């Protein structure tokens, strides 16, 4: 394996807008809200940035294509700006671009900004749109919940689990995230719910109900990264560094070859294995302090916890019901509310996950603060279970 990214790059500052139905905001307004917090946190100015990466996924709904919208909005001084898109994992892609540029020495200070303005479609859920002319000819007529519901039927069949038991565990995934989200002033959904509410909710795509699905939100998040020595020169003492940054992309194996059973993510397992190796983690269940999983749907979080080797295969449902992933549990998951409650402005989500891990590692998470976290993992997934992109990032305090 390549030498890896561990401890080469520091997060100098981060920012995140309030997520939600931001009827009063354009995407540009959200970018400024996140970026201004980020610049203030980093203690640098726009003119000091060497290069920027800009993530949006459904740009036809808001800013349009290219790096220009970011450069215009922040009046960046004619620096390189790269627009990236990798389904719902776009936010982590922006971060990856910035981190690699710094690690390569091509930039001293690099900016990553992600944004999505989804609430201009006129209806709930993600926009119904073309998947490309050829794909439109044969891809199933799937909504996102429908595509991810496949996991539930396959998982249930594989493990011989009663659907009622699985649904209860899935419900607890959402109950826990609502509990956490209620303590996050920037979260889209801040109400507490109970399991019965989840189980009684209208069905969206069998067996997923309304509360098994994450929020569709407007929002933006941003990070500035640099090398450790520069951060120290700028007066930073507590440094949060990147321990691992991995991406795995489906190649048709799951979609076209008769091997994958549909109950997990091949890419999750690949990205996690590489990330743990890069970070030097041998026993993730013992070493990871907390995580933000890509909980677009409750079942996604459930199977991901197994793919990340935090729960044994076939046993995540039990850990979930036992409270292992609650705020007071051994590995708190979605301590900020997750996609479920913080919300899911697609291009921003990967950066939002890193934002919470960053705050927690610096002891700045207010009511949500966990005692002494050392390593935080973010898992950002885009696409469908049978064809997707998955990034796994691990950040921690320098020396952890």
């Amino acid at each position, binding site marked *: 394996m390549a030498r890896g990214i561990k401890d080469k790059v520091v997060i100098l500052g981060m920012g995140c807008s309030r997520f939600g139905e931001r009827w009063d905001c354009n995407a540009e307004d959200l970018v400024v809200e996140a970026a201004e917090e980020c610049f203030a946190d980093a203690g640098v100015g726009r003119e000091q940035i060497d290069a920027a990466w800009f993530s949006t996924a459904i740009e036809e709904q808001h800013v349009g294509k290219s790096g220009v919208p970011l450069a215009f909005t922040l009046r960046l001084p004619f620096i390189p700006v790269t627009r990236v898109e990798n389904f719902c994992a776009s936010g982590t892609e922006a971060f990856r671009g910035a981190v690699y540029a710094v690690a390569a020495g091509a930039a001293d200070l690099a900016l990553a900004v992600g944004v999505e303005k989804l609430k201009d479609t006129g209806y709930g859920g993600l926009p119904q749109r073309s998947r490309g002319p050829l794909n439109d000819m044969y891809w199933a*007529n799937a909504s996102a919940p429908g595509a991810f519901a496949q996991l*539930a039927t396959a998982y249930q069949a594989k493990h011989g689990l009663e659907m009622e038991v699985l649904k209860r565990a899935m419900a607890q995934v959402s109950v826990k995230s609502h509990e956490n989200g209620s303590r996050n002033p920037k979260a889209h959904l801040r109400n507490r719910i109970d399991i019965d509410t989840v189980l009684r909710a209208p069905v969206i*795509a069998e067996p997923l109900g309304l509360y098994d699905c994450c929020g569709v939100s407007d929002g933006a998040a941003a990070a500035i990264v640099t090398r450790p020595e520069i951060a120290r020169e700028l007066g930073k003492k507590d440094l949060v560094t990147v321990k691992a940054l991995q991406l795995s992309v489906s190649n048709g194996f799951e979609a076209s*070859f008769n091997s994958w059973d549909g109950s997990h993510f091949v890419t999750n397992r690949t990205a996690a294995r590489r990330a743990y190796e890069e970070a030097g983690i041998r026993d993730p269940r013992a070493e990871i302090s907390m995580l933000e999983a890509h909980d677009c749907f409750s079942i996604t979080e459930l199977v991901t916890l197994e793919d990340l080797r935090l729960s044994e295969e076939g046993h995540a449902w039990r850990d979930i019901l036992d409270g292992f992933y609650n705020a007071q549990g051994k590995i708190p998951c979605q301590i900020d509310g997750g996609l479920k409650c913080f919300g899911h402005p697609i291009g921003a989500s990967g950066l939002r996950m890193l934002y919470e891990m960053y705050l927690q590692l610096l002891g700045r998470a207010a009511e949500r603060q966990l005692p002494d976290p050392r390593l935080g993992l973010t898992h950002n997934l885009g696409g469908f279970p049978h064809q997707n992109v998955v990034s796994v990032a691990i950040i921690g305090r320098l020396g952890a």
Partner: protein
Amino acid sequence: MVGIASFGGYVPRLRLERKACVEANAWFNPALRAYAKGERSMANWDEDSLTMAVAAARDVPGIERSAELSAAFVASTTMPFADRQNAGVLATALNLDESLSTLDVTGSQRCATSGLIQALHGLAPGNGRTLFVASEQRRTKAASPLELLAGDGAAALVLSREEIIAEFVGSYQLAADFVDHYRSAQDTFDYSWEERWIRDEGYLQIVPRAIKTLLERLEVPASRIGHFILPSPFPKLAQRIAKTVGIPENAAADNLDGMIGDTGAAHSLLLLAYVLGQARPEEYILVAGFGQGCDALLFRTTERLAGFSPRRGIKGYLERRRPESNYNRFLAFRNLVEREKGIRAEADIRAPLSTLYRNRRMAMALVGGQCRRCGTPQFPKGHVCVDPKCGALDSQEDYCFAGRTARIQSWTADRLTYSPDPPTYFGMVVFEQGGRLMADFTDVDASAIRVGMSVDMVFRVKHYDELRHFPKYFWKAAPDAASDSTGQKN
């Protein structure tokens, strides 16, 4: 000797209860109560005359891989395209060789019998066989008698000079511009004249003349006719005409009006496919088709008939039935009411015709690839073999997945995505001999669907482009309710 070598049929699974239709409309036209008995077949929202034609052709065993076909005819007055050869679409969907004569026959309720006569006469020595398909989905106005009388369905015949199960003995055609109804080139619906006039001056005058002339010329006594097929909207009319011309009254075939309704231009051949499924060797079958005149065709079954059966046949499709008591669903499927579909339905998903042509085998015939090196079937066909142990470049031969056994690995009922008939069922289907596809489902029985169930791949409308009036076809998985969880047929 020329004749029929094999046959198949198709009737949509949905059966609209006529009572539901009458209850909704009798306030307006109490006379509709006369038609309240039984059911009529009702195409699903994703079916049209073309998909039913493909289904009927695929009911003929081995049709997809038939290298012997040299012609494919489609007869219908309700094909989706007025100018794009529908028989060509059918041939593509069946993955037939492009060395093929294709022709659409249309313009009259007897276009199928007229076309069939021409096709039988056209079987030249040295040429291959001819696939002749008739299919109809008549558009009818709400609250019209025809809405209750009509049904949707299709039939397919393979015509040949050898291996014949029913010999073509002869035919007679009578042309009379008797306008019982018409549909002008600008119209969507039929305009009809008085029923009593149609019966007395039309059927009862014209049909007997054609039958008598045919039998006289062929020197076959009417008393020897074992099965007499005459579609008509009038009860017992075939029996009455049989009596007039000397055909035994019990020879008049059941016109299936209680279960299907009148499938228009397809009905003569649909009834022929039904009768052939029950007839014995060495029987005469007289088929008549009425519409601005009359066609009469005489067949005689052979010993080979006993050894042939279609995959399901009309009889099998009659049993594959789901009653529909919601008349509003019928109106919606036929686009007879303006419905609120929601903003999601506005997504403009067109089919670029150049993309469609390049990928026609994939999109229309469910053709993927099979790796020459490792043997792995895969959909879609790619440049690099999907088996991670192989990875050969440009190693794939065409491989048709239609007709191959597959099972459900995962599924859902999606209530968010737009569908004309929510929820949308779809899931991963895994082919037993290799290959898989995340496929839309159709004809789903919500209470029976489960992981492990076997599915049939069927040719359907994937999406109807309402801006350009263009049906985009693809293949869907139809769960086979007769299979248990191991996929074995019960």
